[in-house]
C-alpha cells in the first residue's frame, strides 16, 4: 500500500468507467440491466447483451466506504434482524432507500432481471427473492448441488448445464432476442484470458519479498468478476503482471522489512482494511495471499466448450466445494506461498464462510505447525468488529511467530 502500483490507478479508471456506463444505461435503457451473484453463469447474461452489476461487490464497496451502516439501518427499521448476512441487508436496504427516494450510497443501476446461484450459500437465493419481490422483476436461481465426496462431478455439471439452457430460453423470450453462440464463445474466450491473467497476478505473490500484498491485490478482483467479458480485464492483468515482474526483478517489496508472511482466510473486513494493514505492518507481518481470491478465479472457462465450461465454472465455484477441498487448498497455499502463519477472519453475519474456519485453522496449525489466530468481525457491519480483542490476538500471533523463530 505504501508503494503504489500503477495498476491501482488503472483499476480506479476501470471501476469509474463501469459505474459511469451503468448510469448511462439506466437513463437510456439501451441494454437490459441484470443483477447477478458472483458464482452465477454470468457469461450467458453478457452474451445476451445484458449490462451486469453485482450486489455483493456493491456491498463490499459500501463497507469500505462506511456507507453500509445506513443501508442496514433501513432493513433493521423493517424488522430484518441484525445477524442476517450484512451483504444482504446492505443490498435490500439500499434498494428500499432507492425505491422510497431517500437515497442510497452510489446505488447500482435499477435492474430488469435477477440471476443468482445457490453455489455460495442458501441465504443468497432468499436475498435475491426479496430483491425480486421489491423490484417486481423476475429472478432465476441456478441450483448447484454441493461438490462433496461421493457426488459425481459430471452429474453436477450436467444438472447446472440443463438449467443454463433453460435460462437461455427464458432470456430469449424476455429480451426478444436470439442467443448468439459466436458472441458467447467470444465472451468465454475473453473470460479465459482474464482468468489466466488473474492467476498470474496471484502467483507473483509466491515471491519473497512479496511484490504486492493482499491489501494491494484485493481490489483487483473487480475486473475478473465484473469485466471479464471485456478484453480490458485481461489487458489489465497482463500489464499488472509486467509491473509485478519488474518489482520482483528489482527486489522491490510491497512493504520493506517485513519478517513474516501471512495467510488471510475469509472475506475482508472491508471497513477495517487500512487499520488491519497498519496493525500487521507494525508487527512486521505482511499479508501475502488468501483462499478468498479463489472465489474470483473462474478457472474452468474454455472457449472450445463455451456452455459446458460456464456450467462447470458455476458448479465448481470455490464456495460450493467440500470442507476437505478447502482445507487442502489452504494447506497447498501455505506451502506454495511459503507462509509462516495465518489470520482467520470470522464474519459474524456470514456463517457459510465462517463455519469451516475453526477446522481449517486447526488443521493448518497441527499439520504445518503454523501459528494461526481467529479474529472476530464482519464483512461490512462495523459493530461486530471487536477491535480490542483482535489487537491482542494479532499481537499474540506476532509473539508466537517470534517464539517459533527463536
Amino acid at each position, binding site marked *: 500500500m505504501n508503494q503504489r502500483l500503477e495498476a491501482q490507478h488503472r483499476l480506479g479508471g476501470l471501476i469509474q468507467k463501469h459505474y459511469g456506463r451503468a448510469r448511462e444505461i439506466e437513463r437510456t435503457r439501451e441494454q437490459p440491466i441484470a443483477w447477478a451473484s458472483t458464482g452465477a453463469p454470468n457469461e450467458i447474461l453478457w452474451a445476451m447483451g445484458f449490462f451486469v452489476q453485482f450486489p455483493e461487490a456493491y456491498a463490499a464497496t459500501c463497507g469500505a466506504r462506511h456507507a453500509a451502516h445506513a443501508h442496514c439501518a433501513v432493513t433493521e427499521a423493517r424488522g430484518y434482524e441484525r445477524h442476517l448476512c450484512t451483504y444482504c441487508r446492505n443490498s435490500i436496504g439500499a434498494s428500499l432507500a432507492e425505491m422510497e427516494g431517500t437515497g442510497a450510497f452510489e446505488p447500482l443501476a435499477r435492474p430488469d432481471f435477477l440471476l443468482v446461484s445457490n453455489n455460495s450459500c442458501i441465504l443468497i437465493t432468499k436475498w435475491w427473492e426479496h430483491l425480486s419481490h421489491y423490484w417486481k422483476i423476475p429472478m432465476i436461481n441456478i441450483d448447484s448441488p454441493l461438490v462433496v465426496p461421493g457426488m459425481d462431478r459430471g452429474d453436477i455439471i450436467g444438472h447446472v448445464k440443463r438449467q443454463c439452457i433453460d435460462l437461455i430460453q427464458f432470456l430469449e423470450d424476455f429480451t426478444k432476442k436470439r442467443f448468439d453462440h459466436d458472441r458467447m464463445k467470444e465472451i468465454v474466450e475473453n473470460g479465459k484470458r482474464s482468468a489466466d491473467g488473474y492467476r498470474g497476478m496471484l502467483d507473483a505473490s509466491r515471491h519473497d519479498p512479496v511484490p504486492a500484498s493482499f491489501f494491494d491485490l484485493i481490489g483487483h478482483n473487480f475486473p475478473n468478476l465484473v469485466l471479464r467479458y471485456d478484453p480490458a480485464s485481461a489487458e489489465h492483468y497482463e500489464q499488472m503482471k509486467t509491473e509485478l515482474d519488474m518489482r520482483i526483478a528489482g527486489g522491490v517489496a510491497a512493504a520493506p522489512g517485513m519478517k513474516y508472511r501471512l495467510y488471510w482466510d475469509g472475506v475482508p473486513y472491508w471497513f477495517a482494511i487500512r487499520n488491519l494493514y497498519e496493525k500487521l505492518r507494525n508487527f512486521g507481518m505482511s499479508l501475502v495471499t488468501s483462499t478468498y481470491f479463489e472465489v474470483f478465479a473462474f478457472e474452468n472457462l474454455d472457449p472450445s466448450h463455451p456452455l459446458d465450461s460456464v456450467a462447470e465454472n458455476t458448479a465448481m465455484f470455490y464456495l460450493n466445494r467440500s470442507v476437505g477441498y478447502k482445507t487442502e487448498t489452504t494447506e497447498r497455499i501455505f506451502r506454495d506461498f511459503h507462509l509462516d502463519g495465518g489470520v482467520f477472519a470470522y464474519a459474524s453475519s456470514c456463517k457459510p464462510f465462517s463455519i469451516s474456519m475453526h477446522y481449517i485453522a*486447526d488443521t493448518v496449525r497441527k499439520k504445518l505447525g503454523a501459528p494461526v489466530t481467529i479474529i472476530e468481525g464482519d464483512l461490512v457491519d462495523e459493530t461486530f468488529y471487536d477491535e480490542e480483542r483482535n489487537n491482542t490476538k494479532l499481537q499474540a500471533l506476532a509473539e508466537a511467530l517470534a*517464539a517459533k523463530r527463536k
Partner: protein
Amino acid sequence: MIVAGLDIGSTTTKAVILGFGQGFGGFYSDSMKPTGIDMPSVSKEVIGEAAGKVRLSFNDIERIVSTGYGRISVPFRTREMTEITCNATGVRKLYPQATLAVDIGGQDSKVIKMDASGRILAFAMNDRCAAGTGQFLEGAARTLGVSIDDLAKISRESKRKITMNSTCAVFAQTEIVSLITGRAKTEDIAAAVHEAVANRVYGLIRSVNPEPAAQIVMTGGVARNAAVVGSLERMLDREILVPNNPQVVTAYGAALLAEDLG
C-alpha cells in the same frame, strides 16, 4: 536488575516487581488497584506501591513490560506484550508441568494450550459477551444484593439445581430478577450463576481441544471463587490448580519477560 510486570486489566491494574542479579539475591513484590480511566497514573501508583513494599520507588525500576488491555496506554513501558504470552509465562514458572492455563478476569476469559515445553499451541478468548467473566458474577451479586465474596459462600447452601438459560450477561440479570420473583432461593440462584460462568469457560476450554491429561492452572480474579473452580472441576472431571495469588500471575509473567529482555 529491577524489573516490573504491569497488567492493566479492564477492572484492576496489577504490578509485580522482581529484583535479581548481583547484590539483590532476588526479591518479589506486588500490588493492585482498580484501573479507572487514567491508566498511566494508576499504573505508576501501582508500581510505586509495589516498589515501596521493598523500599524502592518507581524510578528504581529499570524495565517494564506492560500487558492487558491497557498495555499500550503507558508511555513509560519498555515493551508491551499480550496477556496470552505473559499469562503462559507466569503459569509455567509457577507450575512447570502446566499445559493448560485458564485465566478469568473482569471482562475477559482466555484459555491457553501449551505443549510440554511451554510453547503456546492455541488460545481462545471469550467473544464480546461477558457471560464467562467476573463482570457476570458482579452483576448477579448486585442483583441479588450480596457481596461478590458472599455469592460463592451462599451458593454452598444450595440444595436445588436451577439452570440459567441466558448466556448473555444482560439477559441474565432479567432472568435472576424473574427467579427472585418466582421465589427461588438465593443460594440456588447463586449456585446457578456460578454454574453458568463455569459453563461458558468450559466451552472455551473445549474449543482448544486440550490433552486429556493436561495439567490445568486457573488464574485471574475469578480463580479466587471456589464455587466457579469447583463447578469447572466437576465438568472437566479433573483437578484445577490455583496459585495463592491468582490475580497477579499475568503481571508476574510480564515481569519475567522483562527480565528476559536484556
